[in-house]
């Protein structure tokens, strides 16, 4: 579950989010909809504890995250959250397999087991044949799937996706929606920030949250 209560986020001269509240139940899929600059990315960052709110309360997967120290915020992300970034944020010099395995490296899972888990996930997403390819050399659609695999590798109960279709054509968007349907079917909480009507109207969402300033 993801619960925001009267959350405000201020930067030096901008306030992308003011007194914002939302409540997404565990296993629910929600879409954050709104035009560019309306605070969608900030909401995702706050939900992932990548940044702290100026005021308000945030609860994700039964954890109060608003004031988590850095060390604990990272551990919280490792255990509870998978993030799919708009521009993927892959390590362009690493192979596909290394990118997918990245979140597992600091864990106590044996290295061989990490590789096996990553490979199984990549097979599921249809990118196993690219395991040894350097991530920076792949197409946008392939990079997108690597980013999804990386987000799911730790088996997180909450998945956050920021404008996942912004770099994809219609065919790839359709594939992505199928993948999201799979994530939803696994019982994970899914929060998608998008202004793409195809996603909004796809029927995948249990809830659509408008973020208008």
């Amino acid at each position, binding site marked *: 579950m993801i619960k925001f209560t009267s959350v405000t986020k201020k930067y030096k001269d901008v306030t992308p989010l003011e007194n914002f509240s939302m409540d997404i139940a565990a296993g629910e899929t929600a879409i954050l909809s709104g035009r560019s600059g309306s605070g969608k990315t900030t909401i995702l960052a706050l939900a992932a504890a990548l940044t702290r709110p100026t005021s308000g309360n945030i609860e994700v997967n039964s954890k109060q995250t608003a004031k988590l120290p850095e060390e604990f915020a990272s*551990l919280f992300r490792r255990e509870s959250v998978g993030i799919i970034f708009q521009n993927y944020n892959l390590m362009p010099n690493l192979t596909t397999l290394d990118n997918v395995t990245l979140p597992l*490296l600091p864990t106590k899972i044996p290295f061989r087991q990490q590789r096996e888990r990553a490979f199984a996930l990549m097979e599921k997403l249809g990118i196993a044949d690219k395991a040894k390819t350097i991530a920076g050399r792949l197409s946008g659609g392939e990079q997108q799937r690597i980013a999804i695999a990386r987000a799911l590798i730790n088996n997180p109960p909450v998945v956050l996706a920021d404008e996942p279709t912004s770099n994809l054509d219609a065919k790839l968007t359709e594939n992505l929606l199928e993948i999201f349907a799979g994530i939803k079917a696994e019982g994970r909480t899914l929060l998608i920030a998008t202004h793409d009507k195809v996603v909004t109207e796809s029927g995948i969402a249990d809830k659509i949250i408008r973020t208008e300033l």
Partner: protein
Amino acid sequence: MKAGLFEFALCSMSGRRSKFIFVYIILTLLMLLCFSVFFITASLRAESSYGSEAVPDISVTMNRGGRNELISTSRVDDIILIPGVQYAEPAYFGLYRFDYLKANLTVVGIDPFAQQYAQSFEKAVKRHKNILTQERWMITGNKLADTLKAIYNRDAFSFAKPDGTYLELPVAGTFSPQSQLMSASTVLTDVESAKEILGIPDGKAVQISVYVGNPEETDTIAQKLSVMFPDTEVTTKAVKQASVSNLFDFSSGIFMLVFSVSLFTFFIIVFDRAAGLNMEERREIAVLKAVGYTPSDIIKVRFYETLITAISSFITALPLALFYVYCVQAPLLKSIFIGYSYMRPDFVLPFVFPAKEIALTFMATVPVYAAAVIIPAWRASVTDAQESLR
């Protein structure tokens, strides 16, 4: 150590290859310079210590207006009467210009039966069986013996005396000192021959060597000598050994070392500070945080990167320094450190491994470099990740 993080550090380094190769080269050069300087100074220190072992407990020399003059041997009779003095004798030594080698030979006149030589002479000198029956003789370091044999093809050498006449001495034996310099430049002769070669008149000597029974009394006896002979300079073995350690321009060497270390370390710090906080690296750290890396995980990754670079540099620099100093005899650096002794014949640097200094260099350079890498990474890892990802 987590193998995964270590492997990631390796992968991450290969992705930023050019930066790490640059740091590796700089760090290797820095270590190579430091190790070479340490090897040379340790070698020279060992070389000079061999010679200082033979120094008498107290040396009495005549010094007038800053000039070293010959001392009267009659003073031995007065010195020997001082309580605590075990033995005293006039010493005859000096430099002989050997034009062929464009170097100075050290000529030392000794009495092989004298108390301080008798025991060691038997052990050190080879093929000297005829020496007792010969009135005139010379014994050389084995390296010099080989040189003379190669030049003249005979077991004798003619010395030009100050009056222009020549004195031919048969080579009665050789000795193998630890010191390469001694081996290449020292000639032991009978006392009379040394006096003739060096132009020392009868009744005079270069110094009076005093041997003390109890080392604890050395300073007291030295003080007494100074009072007894106010026109002389009295030097104890400890003082002489201390001055010997400065023979090879240690101070300038250490200055150069400190200067070089500072310069290179500064260079590395500046490079890493400038390069370590660029947008790309901040973004990488933010991504690592986003996928669940704690600040300590990020520091570990950077630490492994530092360790890999530093150990690679160490492994490269150490054999290179050994090769540079001991195989090719440190061209350029050796002459800088030898300094004043350019008139001495060329000699091979003896092998010495100053493990403490090597470890010290590693410990002095690596933490500075590690700090320059880790501190910016730590700062980036505790700042708002969203800022770097926007």
